């Protein structure tokens, strides 16, 4: 049997690896699977909207660049201002901004609820020797996973819808001039913004979780 007295000084608890944090996060996600899914749907929709707007803009631009008479008539028929180069209008950008903000608040809300709900679990983990940093890691992973998965699904969805709608409107022209590089860039931007939202909105809940004192955490009645 080891004893404290044998030790020169009590060591500091080592930082626990991301791998252990991932195990705990996955347990949390599994427990709240449906709610995680609902939060994710919020991200999916917001990022799908963003990806749709960006990809549509890229496609429209490449179509305008073709400067084909028949196509120009089609573009104008679908409300594209071919003289402005096919830029997205102010109103849509505002709408997009609102959607992204709503999605941020959604994750934030869901994760803060998860913290309140799992105060006892946080207390228990602290009793087992988890440091604040570890708790931050687990909640950070949990909400980032929701955000990043949602962003990936969202951008695929947005891409498919944007290409499908463009094909319906402009037919074969779309594929004759598909701006692959520009679209890839749009997808990267969507993924980046989605991940940024996820990371940003997970910081506060993660710290809120870590600040819970084990004593208070364990006193909470179920």
């Amino acid at each position: 049997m080891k004893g404290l007295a044998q030790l020169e000084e009590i060591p500091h608890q080592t930082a626990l690896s991301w791998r252990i944090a991932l195990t705990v996060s996955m347990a949390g996600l599994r427990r709240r699977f449906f709610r995680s899914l609902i939060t994710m749907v919020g991200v999916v929709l917001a990022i799908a909207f963003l990806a749709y707007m960006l990809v549509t803009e890229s496609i429209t631009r490449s179509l305008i660049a073709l400067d084909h008479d028949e196509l120009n008539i089609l573009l104008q028929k679908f409300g594209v201002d071919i003289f402005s180069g096919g830029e997205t209008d102010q109103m849509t950008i505002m709408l997009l901004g609102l959607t992204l903000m709503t999605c941020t608040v959604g994750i934030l809300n869901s994760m803060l609820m998860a913290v309140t709900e799992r105060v006892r679990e946080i207390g228990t983990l602290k009793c087992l020797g988890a440091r604040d940093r570890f708790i931050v890691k687990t909640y950070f992973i949990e909400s980032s996973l929701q955000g990043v998965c949602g962003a990936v699904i969202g951008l695929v969805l947005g891409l498919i819808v944007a290409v499908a709608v463009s094909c319906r409107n402009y037919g074969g022209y779309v594929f004759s001039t598909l701006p692959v590089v520009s679209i890839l860039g749009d997808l990267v931007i969507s993924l980046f913004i989605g991940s940024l939202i996820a990371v940003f909105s997970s910081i506060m809940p993660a710290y809120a979780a870590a600040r819970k004192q084990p004593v208070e955490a364990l006193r909470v009645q179920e």
Partner: protein
Amino acid sequence: MGDTIVSASGVTKTYTMGEEQVHALRGVTLEIARGEYVSIMGPSGSGKSTFFNMVGGLDTPTEGEVFVEGRRLADLDSSQLAWFRCHNIGFIFQSFNLIGTMTALENVAIARLFAGVSPEQAREDAARVLERVGLGHRLDHLPSQVSGGQQQRIAIARALVNEPLIVLADEPTGNLDLKTGEEIINLLNEMKQNLGVTVITATHDMKMLSCSDTVVRLRSGAIESVQAKDEIEITVGTIDGETVM
């Protein structure tokens, strides 16, 4: 018996709740010897849990000092306290506090992972301890798939897997029926005998008295009495095969 493992001197704890000052502990001085089974009894609100949290390094006294193995807990910073809790204290709770989406094995193994062993070793150790508490056949069950008594056994395995010096059990039988509660008490006692851990329980379960070496009674945050085993008189009777006091 022998040397002192926990020593508290003049411990007070005062909480401020709004305008009001709540005195959870009013000067508790107590020594607990290594390998003892100590029951701390008292009505709710008598300061049992508060005292517990002090010994477990979860809370700090307003005044007074708590020493564990001669070390003043107030001298440790938060990461040292985390290390201390991980390696030296096993916690057992009234409501088990297992992680619902993890199997019995994972619930125990996670405590071992916190102590810094490899995942393979953690699972191996967890399985061995679960076997020891009689749950060798329930390794892959979720807490919700086993009975209350079995959940508490998982919690005991989790508390013991890092070979702690002290097991702190806060009302371990509070959510269990008489018979299951008794089995848990016997298990704790057996672990105390075999592993030499010091067991400190907060309880108002009279069944606990029969295996306690020392019974400390708390009332309104102060020690009312400290009795050694041979000073306690208990009469045990049975009704329909169930032990009652």
